[in-house]
């Protein structure tokens, strides 16, 4: 389904990704983890074609993505920082994305779920960070796509919304989608993910299930397991 072949990315002298090979061929939830600056977001952006890899190829459904744009209609993407044009209202933004994607969408139920109705005609500039993130979520999840990428989906969300989000992600999973998530909330990762891809200094350090991670690191607790990886890698 998604195939990273030998992906390297350099920003100037900084090597962010180094010969990453990653194949995601089964549906499920994949958590991309790693410390700050390990290349998570870069990897995701490479997949979307927002960042152009220095070398290597990416395939989505067997099609090479370089220079193409139609494959993006297969992907729902939640960007990390939800900053929107200040002058546009949430409604306008919704209409814009719907118009651009030209796909059926269920924004109404999502708006209800997140209680966004009172904010729809307010300008984005006037909304709080959490509300913006909710709009961000609606934008990302309203269309039905086989690949879903969520970059830090929980940031700024209140506990209630967080619960709703988890529900939503689980529902998406039952639809047989491939879901990539990056997050710093380990409980969320532990609860949701089928597989973990751990990036360290631009390379895939570990890939497997949460349980496999626990057993390789010989820890009982997921947080500890992660801490263990970080410790050993620095030795």
């Amino acid at each position, binding site marked *: 389904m998604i195939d990273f072949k030998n992906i390297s990315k350099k*920003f100037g002298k900084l090597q962010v990704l180094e010969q990453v090979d990653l194949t995601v061929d089964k549906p499920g939830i994949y958590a991309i983890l790693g410390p700050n600056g390990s290349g998570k977001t870069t990897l995701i*952006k490479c997949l*979307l*074609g*927002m*960042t*152009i890899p220095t070398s290597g190829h990416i395939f989505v459904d067997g099609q090479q993505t370089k*220079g193409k*744009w*139609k*494959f*993006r*209609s297969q*992907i729902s*993407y939640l*960007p990390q*920082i*939800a*900053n*929107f*044009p*200040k*002058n*546009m209202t949430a409604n*306008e933004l919704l209409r*814009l*994305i719907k*118009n*651009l*994607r030209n796909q059926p969408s269920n924004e109404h139920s999502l708006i209800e779920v997140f209680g966004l109705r009172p904010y729809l005609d307010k300008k984005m500039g006037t909304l709080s960070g959490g509300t913006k993130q909710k709009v961000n979520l609606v*934008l990302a999840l309203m269309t039905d796509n086989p690949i879903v990428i969520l970059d830090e989906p929980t940031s700024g969300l209140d506990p209630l919304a967080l619960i709703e989000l988890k529900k939503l992600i689980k529902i998406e999973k039952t639809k047989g989608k491939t879901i990539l998530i990056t997050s710093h909330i380990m409980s969320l990762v532990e609860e949701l993910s089928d597989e973990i891809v751990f990036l360290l200094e631009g390379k895939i350090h570990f890939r497997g299930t949460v349980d496999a991670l626990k057993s390789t690191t010989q820890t009982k607790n997921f947080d500890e397991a992660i801490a263990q990886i970080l410790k050993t890698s620095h030795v």
Partner: protein
Amino acid sequence: MFKIFKYSLSDLLRSSWSYFYLSFYLLLGFGLLFFNPDVSKSVITLMNVIVVFSSLIAVVFGIMYYYNSREFIELLLAQPIKRSDIFIGQYMAVSVSLSLSLLLGVGIPFLVYGVADADLIKKFLVLMAAGVFLNFIFVAVAYNIALYHENRIKGFSYAILFWLFMTLIYDGLFLVSLMTFKEYPLEKASLVATLFNPIDLSRILILLQLDISALMGYTGAIFKSFFGTTFGFLIAVSCLSLWVIVPVSNLRRKGNKKDF
């Protein structure tokens, strides 16, 4: 591309900035026409404002708009749209909205005043065309600078510097070198030097309307064929077009390559 253009334009047309800019031109236009006894003098003042001021606003506003819409661009980049369409669409929207402010802001006073003199109307149209060209050129340059510089302060400084260079420094160096090499035939060189500066080019377009009498006083044959016929006008217009085409195609190229 058209979708992006439409959305960015509607975004711009609702920003208070556009109204501020429009009302500036309205004030200027009405002020010049109604408080100045001499319409042809107004055209000269207008020329200075358009050449100097609207190019400054275009380059500043262009770079500001890009930096402010960076996240929006990222949002769009994840959508199934051609990458370059995002940049070109936004670029077009900024240029068109600035041009609209100029055309309406100066055009409405002219219409209200009821300028009927065909000669003056022609001068006015050339002025507007030069202004629109400058908007499209300076916004394109601003977008290029912005694409190459993530650092806003740096990008902003380069944009201002570019404007300053084109409006003032270039002509200063130009004049100094003309005076230094005055023993040599400079006719062709000075014409060529003009082509590399969009401000000079639009100035030439306007000079052809306002100062043709003085330009015809120069004895050189090349000047004569340049200024005395439509040849000069066509050359100036095509070079201005190149000044749009080259930055825009680089914008397209860079837009496809840039990392976000």
